[in-house]
């Protein structure tokens, strides 16, 4: 049955082609059904494969399709690898993806580019599935690039707005910078191991031991790629700007799936990373720093989608922290729960924006609790989940990461805890300002207010259920649970050298969990008192607040360092290298030929005697060559 895993890939690809080619011919219903149906089909096949994997004795399987590249000793087959890690991601991508497709069918109903939208979405799902299914780094990279492309296409979906196009370009270019690191790491891998297949690379790497400079180099370079794709410091500024795309796109790509590609890649390469502890420290530090920085910026943002974007960056930082302390399973767990509640948050935000006719500034919202009940309650569930309040899903996954961090280095735990508390703060700030208090919008928006249609609210409800229940597959044994997810993923992460997994260590974990939960609940109540009756401030912030509002001026810094000097460098090069040297060489060749031909023309003097003299001389030379040199 595993042999049919290519069906999972084929369906979205067909969906892309059908909705893309006939986007102007098919009715909107047909497009929506094709687009959603293919992803649903992939989800069902993934479920079948998943149930097969639950049976005891399931081994990681490789499915061979064809020989992709075969050069000398380097073989890169087009293979898929199906193991527990892949299946978890498959279910997340297709499941959450399907719900978002369903939501989009209604949300984008009035848009003229309906067919184009669904074809891009299906292409994205295809690329993401290819990424997680690949059995070697090259196939992974193909999917990696594909999701980057779809991200660009979908951010700039409304291409008549130039600032949206700029945002799309920014996302793509920053991704590209990361991809350069990834590629160099890939080349290093090829030169050192003569292979890119996971199995072979891991086997050879294990033979190298833990003090190998090559492994540190490769893992660092792959990390650069992950930093770009998963929006960590310093390549994170594209993600907030990517909110220019339609809200379901933000939900799917920039919350649930594409940005988790970096996590997947590092989790998949856990063997390499476990053998390079230096890089793991870098991963943890980058993740932690990003988590804190992004959370601090989210504290003072006024656009509902921007808050969620910075929240995503911050949560990704938590996942990196989990990877950096060796808790690969915990990081994947957080990927799963984050997909549920972040997608829910974005879709809920979309519902709010849709209800208000396009308004995104929370200072002009408020009091939406009565008018949008379903959105209100599902949004609350998501906020509780992300803040780590038990028994919601976020509590278990975040706690797994924090417990592992404490085990590694208590300082990491304290800073991480601070980040978690900031998360609770800004999320509930957002919640209370948006849904409580008095309505601060215009008269016209007030008339517009209505709850969203079922196609939009059903996914919200389903995701809310998952955000509530989803964590229960990972209840650690310190609380009496069986840690189903951890056990499920354990065979995948068993391959590397022994890293102490965050196994229930009795009382320490329990104490940590209680402390974290209590503090989070306290923060929620504090926020409630602060923002329940929110009045918009009119004075711009001063001091630290100004730095937060302006996102620590990072964008301005990048502009100064990179965006402005580069055109000047290009102009300088054009003037001093391109024109004189390169153009000069090419034009010079032409001029030389002309000069030569002018000189040679003088042979044609019209004098017959000269011609005959030339003939005789030529005959002499030919004779000489023929008889004496050959």
């Amino acid at each position, binding site marked *: 049955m595993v042999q049919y895993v290519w069906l999972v890939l084929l369906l979205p690809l067909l969906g892309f082609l059908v909705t893309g080619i006939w986007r102007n011919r098919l009715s909107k219903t047909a497009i929506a059904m094709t687009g959603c149906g293919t992803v649903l089909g992939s989800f069902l096949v993934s479920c079948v494969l998943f149930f097969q994997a639950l049976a005891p004795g399931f081994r990681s399987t490789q499915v061979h399709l064809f020989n992709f590249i075969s050069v000398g000793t380097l073989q890169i087959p087009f293979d898929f690898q199906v193991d527990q890690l892949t299946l978890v991601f498959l279910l997340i991508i297709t499941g959450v993806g399907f719900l978002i497709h369903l939501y989009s069918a209604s949300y984008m109903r009035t848009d003229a580019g309906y067919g184009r939208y669904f074809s891009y979405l299906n292409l994205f799902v295809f690329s993401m599935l290819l990424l997680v299914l690949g059995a070697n780094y090259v196939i992974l990279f193909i999917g990696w690039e594909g999701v980057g492309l779809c991200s660009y296409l979908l951010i700039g979906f409304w291409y008549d707005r130039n600032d949206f196009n700029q945002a799309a370009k920014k996302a793509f270019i920053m991704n590209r910078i990361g991809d350069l690191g990834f590629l160099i790491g890939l080349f290093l891998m090829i030169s050192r191991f003569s292979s890119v297949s996971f199995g072979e690379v891991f086997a050879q790497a294990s033979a190298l031991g833990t003090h190998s400079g090559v492994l540190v180099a490769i893992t660092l370079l792959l990390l650069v790629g992950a930093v770009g794709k998963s929006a960590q410091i310093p390549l994170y500024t594209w993600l907030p700007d990517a909110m220019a795309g339609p809200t379901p796109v933000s939900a799917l790509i920039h919350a649930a799936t594409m940005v988790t590609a970096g996590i997947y890649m590092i989790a998949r390469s856990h063997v390499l990373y476990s053998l390079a502890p230096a890089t793991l420290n870098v991963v943890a530090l980058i993740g932690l720093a990003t988590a804190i920085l992004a959370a601090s910026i989210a504290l003072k943002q006024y656009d509902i989608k921007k808050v969620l974007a910075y929240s995503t960056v911050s949560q990704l930082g938590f996942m990196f922290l989990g990877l950096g302390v060796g808790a690969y399973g915990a990081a994947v767990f957080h990927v799963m729960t984050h997909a549920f509640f972040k997608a829910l948050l974005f879709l809920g935000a979309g519902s709010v924006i849709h209800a208000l006719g396009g308004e995104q500034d929370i200072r002009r919202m408020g009091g939406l609790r009565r008018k949008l009940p379903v959105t209100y309650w599902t949004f609350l569930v998501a906020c509780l989940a992300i803040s780590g309040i038990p028994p919601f899903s976020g509590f278990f996954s975040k706690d797994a990461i924090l417990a592992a961090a404490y085990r590694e280095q208590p300082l990491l735990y304290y800073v991480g805890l601070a980040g978690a508390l900031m998360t609770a703060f800004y999320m509930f700030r957002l919640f209370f300002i948006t849904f409580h208090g008095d309505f601060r919008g215009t008269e016209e928006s007030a008339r517009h207010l209505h709850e969203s249609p079922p196609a939009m609210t059903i996914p919200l409800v389903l995701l809310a259920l998952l955000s509530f229940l989803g964590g229960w597959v990972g209840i650690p044994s310190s609380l009496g649970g069986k840690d189903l997810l951890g056990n499920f993923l354990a065979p995948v992460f068993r391959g590397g050298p022994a890293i102490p997994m965050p196994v229930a260590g009795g009382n320490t974990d329990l104490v940590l969990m209680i402390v974290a939960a209590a503090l989070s609940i306290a923060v929620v109540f504090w926020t409630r008192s602060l923002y329940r009756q929110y009045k918009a401030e009119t004075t711009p912030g001063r001091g630290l607040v100004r730095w937060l509002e302006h996102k620590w001026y990072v964008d301005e810094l990048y502009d100064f360092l990179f965006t402005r000097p580069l055109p000047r460098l290009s102009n300088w090069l054009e003037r001093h290298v391109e024109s004189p040297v390169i153009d000069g060489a090419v034009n010079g060749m032409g001029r030389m030929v002309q000069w030569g031909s002018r000189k040679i023309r003088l042979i044609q003097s019209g004098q017959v*005697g000269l011609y005959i*003299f030339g003939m*005789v*001389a030529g*005959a*002499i030379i030919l*004779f*000489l060559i023929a*008889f*004496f040199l050959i």
Partner: protein
Amino acid sequence: MNWQEIIFWILAVLALLCAIGVVTSRSPINSVLFLIMTFFAIAGHYLLLNAQFLAVVHIIVYAGAIMVLFLFVIMMMNMNADTEPQKSQLVRFAGVISGGILLVVVLAALKKADPALMSEKSTDIGLISNLGKVLFHEFIVPFELSSVLFLSAMVGAVLIGKKN
């Protein structure tokens, strides 16, 4: 040194001297006369090689027809030694040198060849009956085509020579 070699050397020297005379003489009429002498010398060589038919044809065609043509044209143009255009010394020198080099190079190349003696079979291939057989058996098509060639040459010469 039998009599064949003596005659060969006499004819050879005669041919070479007359050829040099063609090249160096100042008056064109003298050149024509020297050329006729050269042709007779070469005809003598043909006879020595027992190519009887060719010897006779050679004299009739070359000395009898072609040189007469040349003579007519020269006399028509009224050329004599004073009106003769001369090339500069340098050019003449260069011409002699290049011709000399050509001679030397090919001679040197041929020095490697073995001096072979002629075959001892019958030397009757120059007889007209034998030549006739070969001509009309194997070379009949070129023979007919040469008549076409002559026709075109005649037509061409007449056309070129017309006044208008």
